[in-house]
């Protein structure tokens, strides 16, 4: 894992001291809100419906047990005993006092954490595959590059006032688990025929009001050119991105309006200027950073195979959990464990301080002290010996964290919605809870198979509804909540944007509508192996429209 150097420490501490001074001046009335607002946002402090909210960065979703304990401590000491993990691999606290935020940031700094660049028109926390460094199908660990990008982009003077916020995601496997095609820049780390590392570069993806799939503008960018090429893209965007209209300011609109070919030409022209400058990544630096992410030494634990088979035979619940929540690791004696933060009927992404402590304990004892946060709002222990799965499972059961639903219909992404968010039009969490309860029976979930439901409380799409197999978007209609349903979205290597299926549903009808969609799928799938998404791509929206609105309701929108 990356360790702060002296510069990082000094910088973060200086920022905390500066913010402490700003907060004091705000509380004493010396600073008005108009002047203070941009300052607090730069330090991750938002104002929501009920209170301030603090968003803490978890760079590329990686943390150790000490850091997780600190997150728990903050939840306990300064908040109401819980935190909310987000689709940006961050954590949000919903009830901090403004007057406490400097202390919180100071405590975070002691474990090398901060809230920088979690807001504002800058390059935000770089996200990465949550299975990075462990996945069987990975070409190389994407996190060293995410870290290089983090260092390069942190308070980058040229890119701190972009036309709009900017999100970069990196994956190191063909199977895209970081949704790179719906980011401003998506990087797919791969090897060329000569076995050298480089990136396929995607630009201009995004969700929100105008969802767009990123365009690939480079098939293979050599590793050493990473920063020069990204800088070239940022320069083109910074110069030509629209500052006249907030809704048209993201790079996706620029790519769309300029055309991929012309934009690529502009980027290449900039790149030609920058290619052999000080932005070129020296191999030694890449190696030095990569060393921080060196995989832990995993001793052979072949005894786990037999024990695992035996445990599974003995305990059906355990077997179910292993089948759904444990994925193959590079090392055959190990597995990658997904700790679901989607208890049946619970709040997606929330964890109590006690649960965070429990995860920290388990990670320290059984998982090489490594923890990840996934953009699907779950926690991952990337390196667990099969021989330790049983005690890990028992410990998770004790903490209420053993829900066996990874990738199933109740593994729902939901944004905070109108229960917290000042921008929301409708609630997300209660809808997720009701759907989860409806489909909660384990047999039923398994019968349905892989199905991703994603819910946003407004068009900003923090709940990724555009790329949900079933997406729900909350809107306000005549003062009441209404949910628009999209089908067929996907945020993987075959990214697609969901299509609106018809008129929306009232809160009390939306779960029935989802059930109708699911039952329709079950009735038309060719076999159990044909997932919801595959089936939808084969048959299209019509059977679902017919089921929802009746065969004659064609034009009811």
């Amino acid at each position, binding site marked *: 894992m990356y360790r702060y150097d002296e510069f990082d420490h000094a910088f973060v501490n200086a920022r905390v001291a500066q913010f402490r001074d700003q907060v004091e001046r*705000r*509380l004493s*009335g010396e600073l*008005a*809100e108009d002047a203070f607002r941009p300052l607090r946002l730069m330090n991750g402090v938002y*104002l*929501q*419906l*009920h*209170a*301030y909210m603090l968003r803490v960065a978890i760079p590329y979703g990686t943390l150790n047990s000490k850091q997780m304990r600190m997150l728990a401590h903050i939840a306990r000491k300064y908040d*109401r*005993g*819980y935190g909310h993990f987000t689709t940006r691999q961050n954590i949000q606290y919903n009830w901090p*006092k*403004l*007057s406490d935020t400097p202390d919180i940031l100071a405590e975070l700094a002691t474990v090398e954490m901060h809230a920088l660049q979690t807001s504002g028109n800058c390059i935000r926390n770089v996200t990465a595959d949550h299975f990075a460094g462990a996945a069987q199908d990975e070409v190389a660990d994407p996190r060293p590059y995410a870290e290089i990008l983090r260092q390069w982009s942190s308070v980058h003077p040229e890119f701190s006032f972009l036309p709009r916020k900017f999100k970069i995601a990196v994956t190191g496997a063909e199977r895209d688990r970081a949704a790179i095609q719906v980011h401003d820049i998506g990087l797919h780390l791969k090897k060329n025929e000569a076995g050298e590392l480089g990136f396929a570069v995607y630009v201009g993806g995004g969700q929100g009001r105008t969802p767009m799939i990123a365009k690939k503008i480079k098939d293979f960018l050599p590793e050493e050119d990473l920063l020069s090429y990204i800088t070239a893209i940022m320069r083109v965007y910074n110069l030509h991105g629209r500052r006249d209209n907030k809704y048209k300011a993201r790079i996706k609109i620029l790519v769309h309006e300029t055309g991929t070919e012309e934009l690529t030409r502009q980027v290449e022209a900039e790149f030609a200027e920058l290619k052999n400058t000080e932005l070129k990544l020296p191999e030694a630096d890449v190696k030095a950073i990569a060393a921080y992410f060196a995989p832990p030494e995993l001793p052979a634990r072949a005894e786990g195979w037999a024990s695992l088979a035996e445990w599974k035979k003995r305990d059906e619940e355990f077997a179910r959990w292993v089948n759904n929540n444990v994925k193959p690791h590079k090392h055959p004696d190990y597995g990658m464990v997904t700790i679901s933060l989607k208890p049946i009927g619970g*709040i997606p992404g*929330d964890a*109590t301080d006690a649960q965070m402590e429990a995860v920290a304990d388990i990670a320290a004892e059984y998982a090489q002290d490594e923890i990840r946060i996934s953009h699907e709002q779950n926690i991952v222990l990337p390196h667990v010996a099969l021989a330790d799965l049983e005690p890990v499972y028992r410990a998770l059961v004790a903490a209420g964290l053993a829900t066996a639903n990874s990738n199933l219909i109740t593994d729902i992404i939901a944004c905070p919605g*109108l*229960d*917290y968010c*000042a921008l*929301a039009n409708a*609630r997300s*969490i*209660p809808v997720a*809870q009701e759907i989860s309860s409806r489909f909660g029976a384990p047999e039923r979930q398994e019968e349905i198979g892989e199905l991703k439901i994603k819910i946003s409380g407004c068009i900003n799409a923090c709940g990724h509804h555009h790329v949900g197999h079933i997406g729900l978007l909350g809107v*306000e209609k005549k*003062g*009441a*909540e209404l949910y628009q349903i999209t089908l067929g979205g996907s945020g993987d290597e075959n990214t697609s944007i969901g299509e609106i299926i018809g008129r929306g549903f009232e809160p009390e009808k939306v779960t029935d509508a989802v059930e109708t969609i699911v039952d329709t799928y079950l009735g038309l799938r060719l076999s159990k192996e044909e997932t919801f998404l595959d089936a939808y791509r084969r048959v299209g929206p019509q059977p679902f429209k017919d089921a929802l609105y009746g065969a004659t309701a064609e034009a009811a929108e």
Partner: protein
Amino acid sequence: MADKVLTGNRLGDGIAVWLDAAGNWTENLQDALVARHAEAVQSLEEIGKRDFAANLVLDVNVIDVAEVNGKIRPLRLRERIRAEGPTMVYADGYKAADPDFIAA
């Protein structure tokens, strides 16, 4: 004209508050001063501006309410949720908002 109350979020902790008849900011919507005619609304607006400028509250708004069975009830769902808190149980020791109050 709908009845109105003045609301904002308290500077120090961001908690949602409403202006009461004594000119204090209260955490309880039911203690809020209800303005029933144009001059009263205007005075709420002025107090809102004044207390924002005095750095007591932020995100200040005059919102529409109705009195139902002697209870002040904001017309917008957003404001009902602000008054009652999240609509589900979210943490030990904190109740979910009253569903009858929240319901449309």
